């Protein structure tokens, strides 16, 4: 059958070509990530998963959510815990993260899930500047079905898992790699921190100064509000869909007998001010939806977003919407106290 032979010949060659391409992409991707990494969240997340695996029999608590979730310091809470927070993660990604945790952690008792002001207004799928992050998410997480309506990113992510393609496709067009390979190139920290290091009553910490916090707050609050509004425009019914995703996550964890603790960490006062100016409706919606979750699932929620003892202290902030290490300790102590007293703060 001539047609069959032609197809067979083509498929053999195509397969050889694809295998070759995959090998080359893996080599190039590894080289690029080694010489001039563009993102550190992937490495960070992989390290977290490795740590979780290494202590799987001891883990009592996990943290889920975006980078705001890293406010928890488990040494203060007195728990064996591990953060699985992912920078810029939305509630759909959190649901998939939970689904990917197939093997039960035998001692897992508590899951802390962070809720930011904009948590119910985010979907990274179609938002151009976060799309590559969503693709990276699929590449990292062991799930085999896409988030609803997100087939293209899912396929790209799974392709990346085996070919390293997203490390080959670089926004700098490989400029950083070529420069990094020059013999005269000096090692450059791709993610330099421009804050200060001081010693205060809370200990030694890197943090922003008041001026830096003010300017960061203005920029980041504006950006968070506008990006959330754009995402809502792209995804009609986003709030309800995000709510449903979180509800399913809660149901799944509760069915395993895991205690759910929802929390909002403290933000710098100026961040709160700027966010309120442009996105107060988002905060109101978030509180309303959280109330609904509390009523439906009897989950705990602790809102420290404008805690007066933290929100005005620059030393406690890495930047305007992230606590410093000192801030983590102070916040975690307060969270522990609230959890032990059973009070629901700032509801």
């Amino acid at each position, binding site marked *: 059958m001539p047609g069959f032979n032609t197809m067979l010949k083509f498929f053999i060659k195509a397969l050889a*070509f694809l295998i070759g391409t995959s090998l080359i992409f893996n080599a190039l991707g590894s080289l690029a990530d080694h010489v001039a990494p563009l993102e550190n969240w992937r490495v960070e997340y992989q390290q977290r998963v490795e740590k979780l695996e290494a202590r799987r029999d001891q883990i009592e608590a996990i943290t889920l959510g975006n980078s705001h979730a890293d406010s928890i310091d488990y040494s203060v809470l007195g728990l064996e815990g591990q953060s699985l927070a992912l920078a810029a993660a939305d509630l759909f990604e959190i649901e998939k993260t939970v689904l990917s945790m197939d093997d039960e952690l035998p001692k897992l008792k508590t899951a802390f899930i962070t809720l930011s002001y904009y948590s119910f207004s985010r979907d990274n799928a179609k938002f151009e500047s976060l799309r590559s992050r969503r693709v990276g998410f699929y590449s990292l997480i062991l799930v085999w079905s896409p988030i609803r309506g997100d087939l293209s990113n899912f396929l790209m992510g799974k392709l990346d898992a085996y070919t390293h393609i997203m490390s080959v496709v670089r926004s700098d067009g490989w400029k950083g790699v070529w420069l990094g390979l020059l013999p005269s190139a000096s090692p450059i920290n791709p993610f330099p921190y421009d804050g200060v290091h001081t010693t205060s009553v809370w200990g030694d910490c890197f943090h922003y100064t008041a001026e830096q916090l003010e300017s960061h707050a203005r920029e980041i609050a504006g950006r968070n509000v506008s990006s959330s509004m754009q995402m809502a425009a792209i995804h009609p019914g986003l709030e309800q869909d995000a709510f449903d995703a979180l509800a399913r996550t809660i149901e799944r964890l509760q069915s395993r007998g895991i205690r759910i603790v929802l929390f909002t960490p403290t933000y710098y006062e100026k961040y709160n001010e700027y966010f309120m100016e442009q996105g107060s409706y988002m905060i109101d919606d978030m509180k309303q939806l959280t109330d609904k979750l509390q009523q439906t699932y009897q989950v705990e929620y602790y809102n420290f977003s404008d805690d007066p003892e933290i929100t005005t202290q620059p030393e406690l902030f890495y930047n305007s919407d992230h606590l410093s290490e000192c801030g983590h300790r102070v916040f975690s102590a307060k969270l522990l106290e609230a959890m032990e007293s059973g009070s629901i703060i700032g509801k």
Partner: protein
Amino acid sequence: MKFNSIQFLVFFPLVAIAFFSIPHRWRWMLLLGASYLFYASWNPKYIIVLLTMTAIGYLSGLLLEKEMHPTTRRFILTLSLLASLGILFFFKYFELSSYVLHAIFGQLGIAHLIPGFNLLLPLGISYFTFQTLSYVLDVYRGVIKAEHHAGIYALFIGFFPHLTAGPIARANQLLPQFHTVQAPDYEMIVSGLQRMAWGFFKKLVIADRLALMVSTVYDDPTAYTGAALILATYAFAFQVYCDFSGYADIAIGAARVIGFKLQENFQQPYYAQSIPDFWRRWHITLYNWLRDYIFYPLSRMLRRSGLNSDNLLVMMLPPMLTMLASGLWHGTNWLFIIWGALHGIFMVSSVLWNRRINSLRLPFSLPPLVENGIRIFATFNLVCFAWIFFRAHSLSDAMYIIQHLFVNLEINVSLFDLMPVGWYDWLIALLAILLLEIVHWQQRENSSLREVIRRHPVWLRWSLYYGLVIAIFMFGKFEAGEFIYARF
């Protein structure tokens, strides 16, 4: 679904494999289903427009073939053309007409009651309308027989490789191919894939890279002068060429993989030695369409009215109207009409100039290489000048750009900042254009570049293929997306 999307990367191989795996009698169904899926992935509602246009063409063809009486045939033709053009007009030109009428009635102080619909322009409507028109006209003229198989006819109109941005297929060229049994042909598959890869290179590495710089300048032209404006205009010339010819390469390549031959749409247009020559090389299928259905009939009509070919009206009117139609085909924006008119003026001037030059006995002659070089340079710059109107957001922007083209021609490092990754983006763009020109040069020397590549050993061939694929991923810009000509 865009060609440069991950969905297409999955969709196309699946369609191709399925196509060769099923018997010939079912293949049209598969291709038609795939084509409608391809179209519906953009906006499912608008498939009705495609179906309506298909029905108009199909029924008109059958009626025209059946009907023998000239008056009735003319009536059917007129009705069919009005229906097809009416749909095109409704979606593409209604808003402009409504706006113009509002302005006119407003000036006269008369209340104007034409409603606004705020419609989305159906993807590829200009392409499938023109295909329908040419089919009906060809059946009417007896050039082709009507297609009786409704499914095959629908496939001719909706075939996914050419559906959204051409090439505009002709019935006598494409319809017979759908009736022919296509056996998998290794050479066709491989050359189709190579063509697609080259199209992706042009689109992602060159066009979308240059697009960033062009947008920076053209979105805010008053912030720039001289060098930046010239650079952005030249960059747009390459952007629009690589974008559109890249699309054509992918479309032609995709069709070739499954055994179909679509018409070429480009033939190194920037090597044209005159504006008429440019139009024989740029968007060839549209130009051929306009030539066959506007230029020739108009010329014939004028000659039949007693004017000879030396008459100025015969020389000027057909090219001018043809180019105006070309501008109008692109859209409702006045700038497209000015762009078309400019090309019309260039074309008429070129004809008159050639007649004048041929009638003179010049005392000197330039070496052919120099003369051709001058012609190519002049033509390229005229085309670039017209591109200003094509790309600008408004007439005032276009006028500002023209007025400031030669103001402050200082070349300095700040020009690097017009690209997101500065000098590096420029370097990549220049190297990619250099590669493009090497390929063009090779194609001029040997019409089939594939033949040239085939003569080399397998390791070199595979290295070239790997190099092309890796270059696309390493240096491609994957954020942009839309093909410029898919808008029309």
